[in-house]
């Protein structure tokens, strides 16, 4: 048991090094993203689904939209409130959220999410990127 102090010392050094990313970045957290709603979106007041839902699940909803539009030729979305929307990222979503840089990119950049939507769908706010 003579090596106790070495073992403990070594363990301590290991833990400190192992936790390097945590203490190194302590207090330097990037500010939470702050997506800006466009005037149009504000005026509309409501998205196609409730805000909390859209925040968490918009990608799944878009996936369902795609499936319906491409596979089943059904292009109209009727939400639980009975309101009807044409399912189109480019022509419906971007119609209200007309500034991708100030809306979509804010959170995607923060979360380091590299979406490939824009490889094909045109960001109408700027046209050709």
């Amino acid at each position, binding site marked *: 048991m003579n090596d106790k102090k070495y073992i403990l010392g070594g363990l301590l050094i290991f833990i400190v090094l192992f936790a390097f990313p945590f203490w190194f970045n302590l207090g330097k957290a990037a500010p939470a993203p702050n997506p800006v709603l466009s005037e149009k979106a504000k005026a509309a007041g409501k998205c196609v689904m409730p805000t909390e839902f859209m925040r968490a699940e918009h990608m799944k909803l878009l996936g369902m939209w795609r499936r319906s539009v491409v*596979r089943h*030729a*059904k292009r109209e979305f009727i939400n*639980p409130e*009975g309101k*009807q929307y044409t399912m189109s990222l*480019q022509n419906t979503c971007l119609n209200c959220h007309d500034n991708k840089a100030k809306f979509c990119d804010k959170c995607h950049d923060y979360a380091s999410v590299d979406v490939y939507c824009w490889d*094909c769908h045109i960001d109408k706010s700027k046209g*050709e990127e």
Partner: protein
Amino acid sequence: MDSSRRSVLKFFGLTALGLASRPVFNAFATEHGHSAMHFEKGAKALKAKQWAMVIDTRKFESADELEPIIEACNKAHNIPQFENKNHEIKWIWETEYHNAFPQSPNRFLSEEAEQRPYLVLCNHCENPPCCRACPTQATFKRESDGIVIMDFHRCIGCRFCMAACPFGSRSFNFRDPRPFIPELNKDYPTRMKGVVEKCNFCAERLAKGLEPACVEASEGAIVFGDLYDPESEVRKLLRENYTIRRKQSLGTEPCVYYIV
């Protein structure tokens, strides 16, 4: 708060059901139609069991006359224009008789018919070999209207479909097409490098109650309609004229018919 949480939960239940089995999903969607989200066809959408096209080649004398038709499609769908022929993207294009109908050239053909320009595009075959080749079901024959369509999100660019299509109807994006689109139509997406593309029978226009862009631009030389509706314009033309199809002996059952 509460009610929205409930709808979220409902949505998840619905999604899980939908993923597990589509029939269950559909039943659920209709049964609870008033409360859950659901999907519908637009009120103006054109419907058919199998869309088909009849091209009256007698109405075209020179390739110039096909130009506006091809242009209409190119513009509507953001088709890039490449100098390099190997990179070419084609949805609808002009070709000569012997390329369009290699299996049926008779000897001593009418010179006039032989010299005519022929418009070719995806035939939206009733028995499409391209769909059987696709390992991801990125390309498939849509049950609701018979269009052979692509879900570009799923295409992995293996090009099996290109090898399988006997008509050369498909093109591959060897490069990012965006910089090569002369005039961007901002209402329609582009494609990305690494996916295959082809004519979609203007599914996006049919959904709005419009005929395909080429049909509209053809001033009556191309007619579009339901192959299985005996009263449709297409069936009327097929009844009244002698028509041929491309490489019919292969059994893919093309849905583009030519009056010659």
